[in-house]
């Protein structure tokens, strides 16, 4: 729903707004219950199409549906769903063997790959992978599968004959998307999070280049001042690569939004056509194309298509004009918002939260997965028009969670549409960055981005605990100091909060299947719960780990000075964060100054004010960390 329409609707309902507000708390109460299954009781079971592949003859489109844990098979001629294949939890990627007979689907919350016999539309095998497998490609001989693991930051190399993972290649943080060179010699891996870096330094991500023959990483193309990188594509002649990416402006005070002040949407180009990698802007002076996600290059290399997940459109780039511009302009020019006029030839409106895009084999059709509409836009690549929309058969009722999800993922509400909630909370997680928000003063109160998992019962919010509840967090504060433009109506805030509170914990990979702890984790638990220092001295209750990090979510929901404040902080009193899934949310501390859990104590706890830890050996600290990872 567009903002204007939403506003009108809100005005019409005027009198019942207050009732809705209170109803929301009832809804929240339901949404906040532990979510054993993603589709909670009473909720619509949406599909959320996210990635696609085509059959060899182009007659069938296989669509990965992230929310319904399945692949829907579409007849491209009729536009009808002809089969549904259940797979593992939260599938996110798909690849087809070179003969099209086998499909590989990454099940990101099952940590495996579903192998589908495409002739039977049936899962015939599951293959092991790392933590949160996402992107997947199969080599040209069809003997080896490569899987990008988002949470373990690596690429699994799986022997398809034996079904065994034969090695892991270290990638960057948040390894997520893979593309193979046309000759099959190289695989390019991109990452949704920046690599760990020194405090308050520009983020750097990378394109990890894998030599397929040797199965080793041979190059890391560093992407400076880049955080989230999404799909990557390579032209059929192998001379031009393009990766969709975000350039955050997290190091400058966010005093306003205009002039690309918060995010730059861009591509990194690499390959023989451009020489050294070059970043190119996609935005304009007064309009932004938020969260560039899917990339496709036409077979004749005449056009690049780029979906903007936050802006509900697809950008069309003229490759010849682009290459001319890249050669003519002095580098860098990624901060020149007028540059895109040289090479952007069209912007095509599509559905909500467009993600994966796929060209037909002849390049005449572009398929766009509208994740929050449960449909596929079909674009004629000659006219750059949407010619049809394939309904995948999801629920027609749009419930509060889905409405909130659309609000979360759209950039419609920020000034000139520059960014949305999901720019910082990528895929409703984090961005691994620290931001300088304006209300606190310039350069003061630097704050790390916090996880959104299972937030009910962790109030208040903000690192200083200044926001008592989520409607306050998402409402006026967001409008005034983030979006700097008219934002959500009260009803929309309610929907948004309903969605945010519906976000469950991701599976914890550090717990044993039987629920027991390993010996190291047991030792760490003892340290976490200890009341005496190693020399027998009682640890004051308020300085015991389990005092502040107590309760079901390991937070006492209070604000405490544990000595981690910085001279630039207005107050050293910090909100106690919850700990579940803490392993995935680096960096740590309120300002993100600790790059790892270990640094919390080895660097930032010299006086034992953040728990007593200086009497611990290195091994004991490791044990403590092993335990924390299980929470």
């Amino acid at each position: 729903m567009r903002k204007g329409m939403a506003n009108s609707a809100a005005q019409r309902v005027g009198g019942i707004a207050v009732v809705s507000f209170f109803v929301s708390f009832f809804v929240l109460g339901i949404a906040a219950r532990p979510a054993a299954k993603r589709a909670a009781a009473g909720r619509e079971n949406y599909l959320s199409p996210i990635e696609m592949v085509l059959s060899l003859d182009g007659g069938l489109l296989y669509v990965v549906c992230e929310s319904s844990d399945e692949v829907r098979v579409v007849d491209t001629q009729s536009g009808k769903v002809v089969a549904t294949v259940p797979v593992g939890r939260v599938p996110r990627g798909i690849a087809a063997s070179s003969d099209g007979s086998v499909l590989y689907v990454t099940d990101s919350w099952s940590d495996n790959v579903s192998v589908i016999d495409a002739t039977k539309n049936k899962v015939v095998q599951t293959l092991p992978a790392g933590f949160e497998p996402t992107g997947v490609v199969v080599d040209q001989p069809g003997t080896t599968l490569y899987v990008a693991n988002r949470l373990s930051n690596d690429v699994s190399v799986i022997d398809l004959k034996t079904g065994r993972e034969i090695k892991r290649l270290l990638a960057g943080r948040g390894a997520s998307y893979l593309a193979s060179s046309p000759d099959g010699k190289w695989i390019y891996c991109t990452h949704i999070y920046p690599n760990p870096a020194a405090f308050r330094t520009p983020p750097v991500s990378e394109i990890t280049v894998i030599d397929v023959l040797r199965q080793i990483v041979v190059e890391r193309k560093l992407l400076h001042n880049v955080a989230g990188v999404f799909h990557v594509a390579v032209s059929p002649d192998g001379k031009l690569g393009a990766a969709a990416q975000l350039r955050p402006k997290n190091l400058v005070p966010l005093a306003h939004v205009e002039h690309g002040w918060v995010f730059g949407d861009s591509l990194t180009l690499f390959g023989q056509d451009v020489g050294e990698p070059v970043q190119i802007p996609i935005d304009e002076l007064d309009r932004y194309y938020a969260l560039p996600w899917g990339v496709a290059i036409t077979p004749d290399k005449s056009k690049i298509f780029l979906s903007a997940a936050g802006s509900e459109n697809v950008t069309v780039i003229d490759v010849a004009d682009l290459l001319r511009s890249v050669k003519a302009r002095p580098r860098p020019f990624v901060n020149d918002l007028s540059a895109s006029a040289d090479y952007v030839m069209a912007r095509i409106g599509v559905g909500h939260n467009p993600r994966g895009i796929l060209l037909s084999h002849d390049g005449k059709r572009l398929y766009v997965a509208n994740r929050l509409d449960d449909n596929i836009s079909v674009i004629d690549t000659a006219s750059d028009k949407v010619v049809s929309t394939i309904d995948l058969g999801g629920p027609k009722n749009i419930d509060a969670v889905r409405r909130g999800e659309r609000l979360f993922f759209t950039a419609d509400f920020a000034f000139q549409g520059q960014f949305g909630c999901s720019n910082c909370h990528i895929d409703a997680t984090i961005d691994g960055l620290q931001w300088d928000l304006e209300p606190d003063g310039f350069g003061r109160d630097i704050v790390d981005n916090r996880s959104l998992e299972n937030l009910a019962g962790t109030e208040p919010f903000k690192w200083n605990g200044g926001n008592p509840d989520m409607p306050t967090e998402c409402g006026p504060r967001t409008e005034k100091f983030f979006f700097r433009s008219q934002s959500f109506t009260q009803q929309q805030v309610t929907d948004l909060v309903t969605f945010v509170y519906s976000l469950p914990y991701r599976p914890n990979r550090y717990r044993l299947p039987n629920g027991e702890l390993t010996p190291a984790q047991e030792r760490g638990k003892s340290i976490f719960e200890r009341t005496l220092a190693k020399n027998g001295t009682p640890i004051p209750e308020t300085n015991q780990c389990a005092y502040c990090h107590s309760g079901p979510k390991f937070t006492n929901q209070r604000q405490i000075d544990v000595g981690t404040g910085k001279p630039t902080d207005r107050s050293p009193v910090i909100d106690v964060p919850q700990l579940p899934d803490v392993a995935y949310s680096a960096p740590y501390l309120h300002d993100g100054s600790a790059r790892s859990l270990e640094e919390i104590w080895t660097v930032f706890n010299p006086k034992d004010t953040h728990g007593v830890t200086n009497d611990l050996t290195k091994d004991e600290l490791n044990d403590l960390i092993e335990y924390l990872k299980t929470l």
Partner: protein
Amino acid sequence: MISSRHIAACVCLLFVARAVKSSVESPPSPASFLYTVAKSYEPLAWMHGGERFPSGATILVHNLRGEHALSPELFATADPGISFDGEHVLFSGKRTPKDPWQIWEVSVGIDHARQVTSGKEDCIRPLYLPDDRIVYARKSDGRFRIEAADLAGKNALVLTYGPANFLPSDILRDGRILFEAGYPLGSNATPEIYTVYSDGSGVESYRCDHGKTHHQGRQVSSGDIVFASTSGLSRFTSARAKELALPAPPGEYAGDVAELASGEWLLPWRADSQHIFQLVTWHPGSKAVRGMVSSPDANATQPVVLGPRALPNRHPSGLHEWPNANLLCLNTYTSKHSFAAASIDSMRLYARDSSGNAKLLGSAPVERDGSFFVHVPSEQALQIELIDASGQTLQRESGFFWMRRGEQRVCVGCHAGPETAPENAVPQVLLKSTTPADLTGAQVASGGN
């Protein structure tokens, strides 16, 4: 009681839609719109505090039933502005020839207008803001400044500060006020297009493509700003930093484009300066204009379509409860001017004294990365000068800017242009201190040359 002005307007009406030049195509189907007829029209007279309609003016309502004066009880009316729901009209009006222009409002279909503002000097060019407020230009001490007020004309907030004239021209869909003033800002020289938020913060040039005249700009549905330029009818697009001339038929355009449902533009046009303005329609891309309204002895100008339109975004003011303001410049070397590396040593800040002369408020160091951070007085004309290590001026701002009370503002550079996004780096000045150098004049400020 019918005024002489009213009679004149009625006579004028007899000629409406008849005396179309033979070179102009026949009129299209009519739409409901308002426009201003005036025997004499000097569209840029406001730049010197002058009268745009020295012989008076009348707003006419044009619809399927014909035409009639919007508020016949008033001696003069001009500057029609339609509410976003299409139900109300703001305009400038005066009851008698001796009265100053004031802001009035009338509901569509109701004759009686309500006076919104009052005062001894003119209030002109009113526009609706999206949050039940209005914006207009009020003359004070002989100069027009822009104010925002509530619908009752109360709680007026001054939005522009500088030794010049300012006139609002449109409300952009992103919520900013598009206004006109001389370039350099603070002068009354070349008319240029600027933007400011509805709380008076964030004033800046819409584009830094200066030189030609740019005035009477309005935003059309594509998002482009269409305006009158030295080169004719021109536009600023979202994608480009520079003006793009529109391939409109020859003639003189007065900007103020109104977009019809058909996609055509209704706009004031005349063959040359020897003629008077008539209203024509033009379909962008076509080779001819089509006459809509003309009169043998009166200009037809300021068309606005009568009907609902998209509600712009409200601007949520983030101003703090501080008397002064903070300004952070990320990198003074990012500029359309060229500065040698490491050449900028410090910056000076000037205000104006009561005689209009520059008054030095103080100076602050510029860090090696080009950053500086200063605390400045609010709501007055300010000017920045960049200084080298020997105290010589490298560049002085040609115009002025201002900051609102409690405003915190960050600039990419010094005259970097709106097409330049910031580089993501912690400004060195903030690594030294998060407290700005005090240049409010409250104390002797120093730190540079």
